[in-house]
């Protein structure tokens, strides 16, 4: 998945029409709004243009220069809002925060030779969309919300796979020494695998967790093992 804002010029037909959508993967147009000005970061307003909101992405295309356009996926839009307080920002607009690429911000600042005349849109973290008709703001905001909800994080299914112990009921007696054993191993003075210089310790712990028989042989647990099994 592409992160952040990108340039976009993939238009239908000879390049004058609407953006090409990924219809094969179910992308559909949700809203087309003409007469929208876009502001990227702290940059100057660009207009006029047309805003396209699909089930997956927000696309703005310039009406003047067919090569100019921007796209951002809903997965990269952290937050969106209606901006109406004219004291803080002169034009009522949809305000969006974009999750940009991380890790490059500091290094690439001075190295980019094009930095002066061309902005690197992938670093943009804020975007304002100013419709010429401010009465459209509420419905635009609602479409943004609806589409954001259509795009949950793709990896959230893994959440169920953890293996934690949540209640005392799940700790039967045979497990208890194991837990204590773990606490001892986590002592900062004895990092796992290197205590006593014995590199096999990790392996033996893994076996202990799996194999109860072996576990009973552990020296420090001898007393419990005896009392527990008689």
């Amino acid at each position, binding site marked *: 998945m592409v992160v952040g804002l990108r340039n976009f010029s993939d238009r239908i037909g000879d390049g004058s029409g609407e953006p090409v959508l990924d219809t094969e993967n179910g992308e559909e147009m949700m809203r087309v709004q003409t007469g929208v000005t876009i502001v990227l970061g702290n940059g100057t307003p660009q207009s006029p243009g047309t805003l396209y909101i699909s089930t997956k992405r927000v696309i703005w295309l310039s009406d003047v220069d067919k090569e100019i356009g921007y796209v951002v996926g809903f997965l990269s839009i952290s937050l969106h809002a209606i901006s109406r307080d004219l004291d803080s920002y002169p034009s009522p607009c949809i305000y969006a925060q974009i999750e940009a690429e991380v890790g490059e911000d500091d290094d690439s600042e001075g190295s980019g030779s094009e930095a002066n005349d061309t902005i690197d849109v992938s670093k943009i973290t804020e975007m304002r969309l100013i419709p010429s008709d401010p009465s459209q703001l509420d419905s635009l905001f609602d479409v943004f919300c609806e589409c954001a909800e259509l795009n*949950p994080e793709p990896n959230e299914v893994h959440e169920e796979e953890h293996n934690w112990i949540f209640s005392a009921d799940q700790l039967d007696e045979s497990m208890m020494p194991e837990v204590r054993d773990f606490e001892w191993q986590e002592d900062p003075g004895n990092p796992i695998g290197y205590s006593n210089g014995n590199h096999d310790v990790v392996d033996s712990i893994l076996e202990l967790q799996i194999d109860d028989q072996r576990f009973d042989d552990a020296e420090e647990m001898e007393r419990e093992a005896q009392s527990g099994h008689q």
Partner: protein
Amino acid sequence: MLFFSYFKDLVGREVTVELKNDLAIRGTLHSVDQYLNIKLENTRVVDQDKYPHMLSVRNCFIRGSVVRYVQLPADGVDTDLLHDATRREARGG
């Protein structure tokens, strides 16, 4: 689903949502969905000097995946009830 139900009970209350980019937004919880996307009303940014971005904004939609913490009203937390609910959820019941 537990926290979804829990947050739904907090609708109308004042909460502070802290995002992973360190922006903290205080506002009235308007709604929450199953992905923990959060809509706030009457918003204000907690540290406006440091984060002037949203001075002009009074409501917002926050993507659930960018939320780091939600600070709750102290009296909005029924600890016993929440304990029971987490245990039930852990058992898959």
